[in-house]
């Protein structure tokens, strides 16, 4: 039981981080970023290349995250902002296009074989309360928690407050001089870096390949939805809930059903509480 819960918290943390990334981007650009996982993979592959070039793991990860952030900013400037006023559907399709293009580009650059992104703690375990716990699980869960706190803090800084203002009322924010393009660039930068962190953690504990993001996308979106697309904390909690549900289902019911059961349970929760897992979503609805 404990083992399933810890495994669930680990995979849940991947979903959480991606969901937080989705929420950040949604706040600034009002676009559901379907490319989130593949954009995060850019950071993971960069980190892999830096590790292969014999840089220390920590340095490689930081460089990977910076590279991902830069990539996010470029995507925002080059693609998203140009479409900014054309509405939801073109933006939605554009992120699908980005995702498809990226998968193909990653395949071309880094090949089709699965790669190993090895951290100093890879394949190391610790015995805890009679259970074998992987270090990567502990690191992942801790990182997820830290990021959730950091992002919550960020939303109370000046830049974060502006982002929330833009999310709530784009035009009004512009009227008081908030530069949308800067907020948008910042959000895509931070969002992509958070996504990259998710993908680095995920690929470190499994394998790195250009398809690594596919399986994470749906749970991440479900988590973001459960949080009403507004609350990073809600997205974080929802991601963990989905991860734990999946693993408990896999352990006690059937591994074939684990993704479906998690999805259905989240929908049922939404049916009972349409506002999602958080109060903020409720506040937003009442506006």
């Amino acid at each position, binding site marked *: 039981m404990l083992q399933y819960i810890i495994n669930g918290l680990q*995979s849940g943390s991947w979903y959480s981080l991606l969901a937080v990334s989705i929420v950040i981007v949604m706040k600034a650009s009002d676009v559901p970023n379907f490319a989130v996982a593949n954009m995060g993979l850019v950071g993971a592959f960069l980190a892999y290349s830096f590790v292969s070039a014999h840089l220390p793991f920590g340095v490689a990860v930081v460089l990977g995250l910076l590279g991902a952030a830069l990539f996010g900013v470029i995507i925002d400037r080059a693609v998203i902002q140009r479409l900014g006023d054309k509405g939801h559907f073109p933006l939605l399709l554009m992120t699908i296009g980005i995702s498809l293009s990226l998968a193909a580009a990653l395949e071309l650059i880094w090949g089709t074989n*699965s790669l190993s992104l090895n951290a100093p703690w890879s*394949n190391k375990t610790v015995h805890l309360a009679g259970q074998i716990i992987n270090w990567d699980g502990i690191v992942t869960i801790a990182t997820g928690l830290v990021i959730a706190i950091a992002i919550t803090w960020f939303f109370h800084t000046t830049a974060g407050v502006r982002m929330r203002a833009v999310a709530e009322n784009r035009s009004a924010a512009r009227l008081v001089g908030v530069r949308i393009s800067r907020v948008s660039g910042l959000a895509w930068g931070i969002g992509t870096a958070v996504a990259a962190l998710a993908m680095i953690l995920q690929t470190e504990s499994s394998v790195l390949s250009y398809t*690594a993001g596919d399986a994470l996308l749906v749970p991440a979106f479900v988590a973001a939805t459960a949080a009403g697309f507004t609350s990073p904390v809600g997205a974080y909690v929802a991601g963990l809930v989905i991860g734990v549900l999946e693993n408990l289902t896999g352990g006690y019911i059937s591994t074939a059903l684990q993704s479906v059961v998690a999805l259905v349970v989240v929908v049922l929760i939404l049916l009972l509480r349409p506002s999602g897992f958080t109060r903020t979503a409720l506040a937003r609805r009442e506006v």
Partner: protein
Amino acid sequence: MMTFNGHRRRRAAAAVTALAVGSLLAACGSTTSNASGSGSGSSSSSSSVPGITSNTITIGATEPITGKAATAGQGLEAGIKIATQYINAHGGVNGKKINAIILDDGFIQSREIANIRQLVSQDHVYAIVDPAGSQGIAGTWDFMKQAGTPMWGPISPSDPKLPNVYLLVASRTAQQEVAIDYFAKQGLTRIAAIGEDDDLGLSLKDALAQQVPKHPGMKVVANETLPVSTSDVSAAVLAVKNANPQALIISTNNTSVGLILKEMGNLGLHIPAYADQGAANTGGVGAVGPAGSAANGFLGGLQVDLPTSNTQAVQTWRAQAQQYSGPQGLSAFSLQTYMQEMAFVEVLKRMGSDYSWSNFQKTANGLASNPITLGALPPIACGPLPDGHTCGNQSEIAKFDATTQTWSVIQGFTAPQS
């Protein structure tokens, strides 16, 4: 001769299709029905048999060169190219050179079907040789039956028992049955299974149902099914561990196999684990590479000899493959399609000058009495339907050593215990 004129013609055909639907939709009213548009009457017109001219034999294949199964697809493509190159450099078949058209299906069913149709009805190939056997190929059976075009050596579907389809090597199920027998011989009776939620998992279920009852005392203690292309295998492995098995058989894609091995290592589950050739990518790095030290002792099935083997046949292939510039030339997949194309050419040679499909069928159906032995494959001994088109069911088992990163055969070609 390795031309890809199929591509150019394909572009023309697709353009015509686009015109036929698209420009007509624009409804300018000026369209004339110039839409036979397939460039059909090309080289094959002189002969009554498609794909055969006085100096060429055109064959076709569809492989997942891009997409999720690209590693395998590129290897399968490499083997066909290497074999074709080799055969043509050595005078071809009875003076005719092989022209191989290889299309990419991206591991998508509708493209696989479109490709087979293009090869048969537009490129007029003589035969489909060594197409990837992913699940979608079952969607071509009806069409292949009507067309009558031979399909030689699709990589690993189950046998449709069609007059024109020949399976050359052990199916997944047969390989897994051999593994079950092997475990029984080792005295391991508590068997666990992890299968993917598609035809791969189904093949494993068949093997378990067939073979486990043949070994007294053996039982399946855990039977987990993974969603297709999941990245989270921990719950399944944990469930297996909790069942306390003595051996594990896996039938998933490469990546999942690697993940399962890794997770087994993390959980300290040190029992023999087996996967068939497609899943283990035996001889390659697909599954064992990312698993690291956890892959030590992993057992992989083999439909065809190890690419590192030193038999004469494999050495000849390796010398050719080292010249090959594309990806995955030295993989086990490459060796497999190479050998299967060699077998195909052997059939053609035995046919003499009569290239009719009926003669192809007659010759192939007669292999049982005089099998093709190429060294790296078990003897290919096709016979008449209903069961004769599964031309071989023997497979090897190899073991992986993570410290030296090498595979070694621990049990030679063996058929499942009947």
